[in-house]
């Protein structure tokens, strides 16, 4: 059996007396699009933030290619984290920087590439994402869909191995929602990264994913393919998919 790229084992996380993650066991495989679904406030984003290192679990282990993350040396951890990109729910673009600088920032700060090479890399990503001509604009001057594409361009400019998407389609209309999904699928196929998407966009997201996990009440209630999900006999899973109370 293939070793998961990232594996959560008995992960628990609480904020004071609020136990958000109780006992999370989840596997994410290389080159796949894994989707995490669940009610609002069920801890999906918290789970995602554990992968990127913005939060640390109270107990349990995260395994990277079979090795416990806690046992990696600080250099190895840094190297792993450099292969990750995170796309925030509200994009988190730097509003005092223009679009070019927003996308170029991770390369400017962390790479030793010469400026002209960075420019070439950024302009290539901008062209691929249909952002040509916007380099001198500021985030506030762009539409919601374009901001998403800028955030995606910033996430992809470092050629990451894993991209984490925190509700990439929140606040978008159905057409733009579909476009963002297709965009993620297209670029995932093109660049071959592993994607983890936290979303509420059901059932649209099923078209692009290979693996789905459902988080409820601090535990993973379901993990498997979309076919398994649709054929699931679990009342909780079925009710959630149909938007019924459970």
């Amino acid at each position, binding site marked *: 059996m293939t070793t998961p790229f990232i594996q959560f084992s008995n992960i628990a996380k609480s904020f004071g007396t609020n136990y958000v993650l109780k006992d999370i066991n989840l596997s994410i495989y290389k080159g796949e699009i894994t989707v995490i679904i669940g009610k609002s406030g069920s801890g999906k984003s918290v789970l995602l933030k554990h992968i*990127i290192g*913005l939060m640390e679990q109270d107990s349990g282990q995260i395994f990277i290619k079979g090795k416990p993350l806690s046992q990696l040396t600080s250099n190895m951890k*840094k190297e792993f*984290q450099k292969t990750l990109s*995170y796309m925030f729910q509200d994009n*988190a673009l*730097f*509003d005092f920087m223009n679009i070019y600088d927003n996308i170029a920032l991770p390369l400017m*700060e962390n790479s030793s590439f010469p400026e002209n090479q960075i420019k070439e890399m950024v302009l290539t990503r901008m062209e691929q994402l249909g952002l040509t001509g916007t380099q001198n604009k500021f985030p506030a001057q762009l539409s919601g869909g374009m901001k998403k594409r800028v955030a995606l361009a910033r996430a992809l400019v470092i050629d990451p191995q894993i991209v984490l998407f925190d509700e990439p389609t929140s606040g978008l209309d159905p057409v733009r929602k579909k476009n963002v999904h297709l965009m993620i699928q297209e670029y995932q196929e093109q660049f071959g990264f592993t994607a983890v998407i936290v979303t509420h966009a059901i059932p649209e997201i099923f078209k692009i994913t290979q693996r789905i996990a459902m988080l409820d009440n601090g535990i993973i209630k379901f993990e498997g393919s979309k076919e398994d999900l649709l054929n699931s006999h679990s009342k909780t899973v079925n009710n959630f998919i149909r938007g019924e109370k459970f």
Partner: protein
Amino acid sequence: MVSKIIEKFGAKNIELVEALGRIVIFFLTGIKNIFVLPFQFNKIIDHTWFIGSKSIFVIALTGFFTGMVLGLQSYHALLRFGSEAALGSAVAITLITELGPVFTAIMITARAGSAMAAEIGVMRISEQIDALKTMHINPVRFLFTPRIIAAFISFPLLTAIFNILGLLGGFVSGSLMLGINKYVYMDTVFSSVNVNDILGGFYKAFVFAVIVTTICCYQGFYTHLFKGFGARGVSLSTTNAVVFSCIAIFISDYIITFFLV
């Protein structure tokens, strides 16, 4: 009842110690990163322009009128003792050793310090600081280090501008409006101020630069930890930044003066 009071008192003390620890670590991380390559020249220039150049007009105006008021008040006070000829000395020493550095720091706090706290606070609540972390960019180095260097450059220069304009204001009100001989005014200014007075004023400016930048950036950076979230949290941290900076300026001014005199 008593145990609850003790509990509350203890919790407040723990909060205070935690906050002190956080601000010291924040400051030391910022200072350490001054020496980490590559140097952030462009950002330092940007912030020097924002803190320094954009404050020149306000500082010049405040300095000029402070000097004028000082000239006017001191003239009438000195007149009672028949010592109005010493007006230049009174204005120069008061401005260079005390009012120049203190008023400059307060004006920069009001103009640039509040802006720093608000800008960094908004970055915090809109997850831009988290975004920096996910890009493996040290947010303290990115946001605080260039600002503290810029403040180190700007504060003494603005203090000098304040002093010069203040002396000019004193000259306008004392000599041109109240009739003190202009040569006597200039002579008493130059003869009463020594190098130690000037250096003392600049020491204060450097200390105030550290205090104002650290408090304002810290308040913005940890906006999410204070009571009140979102826009209210930012407004609270901006207010705190200005109030705490001003209090710290006055307290440290007394301490420095105690050691200098």
